[in-house]
């Protein structure tokens, strides 16, 4: 990932004051953590409703980044318009996946869902690679300023990421808690049969959940892509980390996904800086192996898996 190199360069430019570097890493961790949280949220919502680990979620994220890139570069649209366009298209794509693939497999053995999700992922990646090639692209952003707050250099895009991600999480929280449609999703995640008994339409909830997860992935991608790169395999590492996060946070748990995202974000920022940049990406997985070896149910899960 590119952003780390950027931040190291930025912090070296400021000179090597330990506290300064430390605060830079806090900012780094917060940036990474909020993006991880967004992606993991979509994943955990879908898991909570359908009990499908959606391996294609990373591919949706990748498609979201490409849609934004194209709307901005090829159509010259505004950053925010691109984000909306990307959110809508990925939401539609996610709903299509639910309708065409996961819905017919509802009664199938669990192994089939996983294989089908992998099939979708491979297809989306191959399609994008055929259409746009495997090369790395850099997404433009209107927010290129470097803010200088109390001696720290803070790129504006990072501030945007953190504020954007947490604002979206807040909106999602309000939607799930305060609206009727949101409550149907929560109800179905809590108890399927109970939700059916009170007349909740499973199809509608499943489609809505996929649409929300698509929006989260697309917005996350559009926020993160300007300080990262856009390429067909960009979702690989992220989806695996998102899985690590939701296992840590408890699969299906919404606060778990946010907290887990921050844990992994900070672990990577600090581990990458103080231990080794080469092995930065391994930290999340090593943490997972370590935690699951000690506690096979994850950190925050209660009851049965």
């Amino acid at each position: 990932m590119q952003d780390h190199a950027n931040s190291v360069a930025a912090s070296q430019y400021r000179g090597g004051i330990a506290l300064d570097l430390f605060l830079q890493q806090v900012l780094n961790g917060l940036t990474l953590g909020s993006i991880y949280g967004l992606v993991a949220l979509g994943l955990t919502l879908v898991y909570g409703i359908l009990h499908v680990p959606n391996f294609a979620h990373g591919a949706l994220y990748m498609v979201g980044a490409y849609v934004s890139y194209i709307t901005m570069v090829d159509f010259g649209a505004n950053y925010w318009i691109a984000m909306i366009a990307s959110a809508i298209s990925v939401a539609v794509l996610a709903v299509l996946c639910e309708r065409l693939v996961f819905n017919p497999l509802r009664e199938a053995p669990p192994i089939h869902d996983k294989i089908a999700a992998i099939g979708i992922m491979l297809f989306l990646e191959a399609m994008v690679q055929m259409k746009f090639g495997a090369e790395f692209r850099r997404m433009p952003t209107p927010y290129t300023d470097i803010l200088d707050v109390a001696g720290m250099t803070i790129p504006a895009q990072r501030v945007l990421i953190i504020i954007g991600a947490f604002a979206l999480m807040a909106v999602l929280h309000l939607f799930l808690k305060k609206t009727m449609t949101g409550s149907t999703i929560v109800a179905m995640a809590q108890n399927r049969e109970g939700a059916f008994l009170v007349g909740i339409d499973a199809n509608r909830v499943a489609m809505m959940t996929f649409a929300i997860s698509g929006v989260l992935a697309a917005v996350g991608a559009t926020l993160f892509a300007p300080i990262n790169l856009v390429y067909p395999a960009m979702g690989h590492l992220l989806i695996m980390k998102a899985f690590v996060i939701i296992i840590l946070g408890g699969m299906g748990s919404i606060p778990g996904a946010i907290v887990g995202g921050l844990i992994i974000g900070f672990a990577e920022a600090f581990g990458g800086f103080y231990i080794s940049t080469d092995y930065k990406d391994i930290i999340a997985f090593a943490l997972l192996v370590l935690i699951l070896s000690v506690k096979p149910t994850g950190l925050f899960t209660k009851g049965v898996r």
Partner: protein
Amino acid sequence: MNALQKISDFFMTPAMKIVLIVAAVLFPFVAGNEYQIYVMALAFVWAIAVYGMNIITGLCGQLNLAHGGFFAIGAYVLAILTVDHGWGFWWAFVAAGVAGAGFGFLAGIVSLRLKEHYFAIFTLCVGFIIYLLIDKWEELTHGALGIINIPAPNGFGLVDFTETTPFYYLALTFMVLSVWLAARITNSLLGRSFRAIRISDDLAASLGINLMRNKVLAFVLSTTYASVAGALYAGLVRFIGPAEADVVHTFDMITYLLVGGIGTLMGPLVGTMVITWLTQSLQFLEEYRMIVFGPLLVVLVIFFPRGVVGSFLGWRARRMAAAQDAGKSQENAKKKSPTSPVATNREAGNHA
């Protein structure tokens, strides 16, 4: 009995195995060029790995997404020992198998404490850790450069395995051994225990099957298959890089397994052959094969979850049941045998 029935019956007889082996032995003589022999040998090597996957995923029902990683471990152990430490090929080959089993055991005792989705996700992460280690640990694995000049298997002066055709027979021998061992496992008490676990953990436990021990055993068997296949692969291709550990290989193997028929004996071989030759005949697809394979996976799990071999066995079992029912009802119109479909199913399963 019509012709179709006779052909399908012939597929189930022991004579079919001999026909297949004879066809495989004769293949280099009828092949158009050396490249086709090479592709076939490579397909055999992959088939061995897919047989390993079939044990843990098909028989035991645990989706192992680290399989490509263990394939790479086999290839790298062989390459490192022969190139960097001057070991003989066959000693390194044995070491590769042992390493596959050893790492499989370590990964298994941790990962198999988890169930279903957790297991799949965990093994996905294990596979990725293997990839990252191979890619980054340059002192050991030569990093992104890969390892070149891997020696071909030692023929002890009798055969030269740098030639394609002798290697083809070597791969064929290992493949036949793998199928034979897989058949022995499938039909043994061990295989039945694995299948009981696939149906339900609780059911298997209530039958007195030690879940953990059986799952770890299935996992170790599968990783040993994978690393042996990886070692053969290194001996055939003679150049390896971190890409061997790419998760794409695991997905390829899932495709082979699913096309052929998950949990069946001949499925891995049929699936590997079908997809390998399909890819070969659509050369332009090589880079974008996933555009076809991705939707293929989805369509298969929705409409043909049992694959070629599984669908064939199911079709045959239904026909036989229908024939038997028809016969029974002629003999005794009142008394229908409810057990006959079950019995034929089991019979089909045994031969599968």
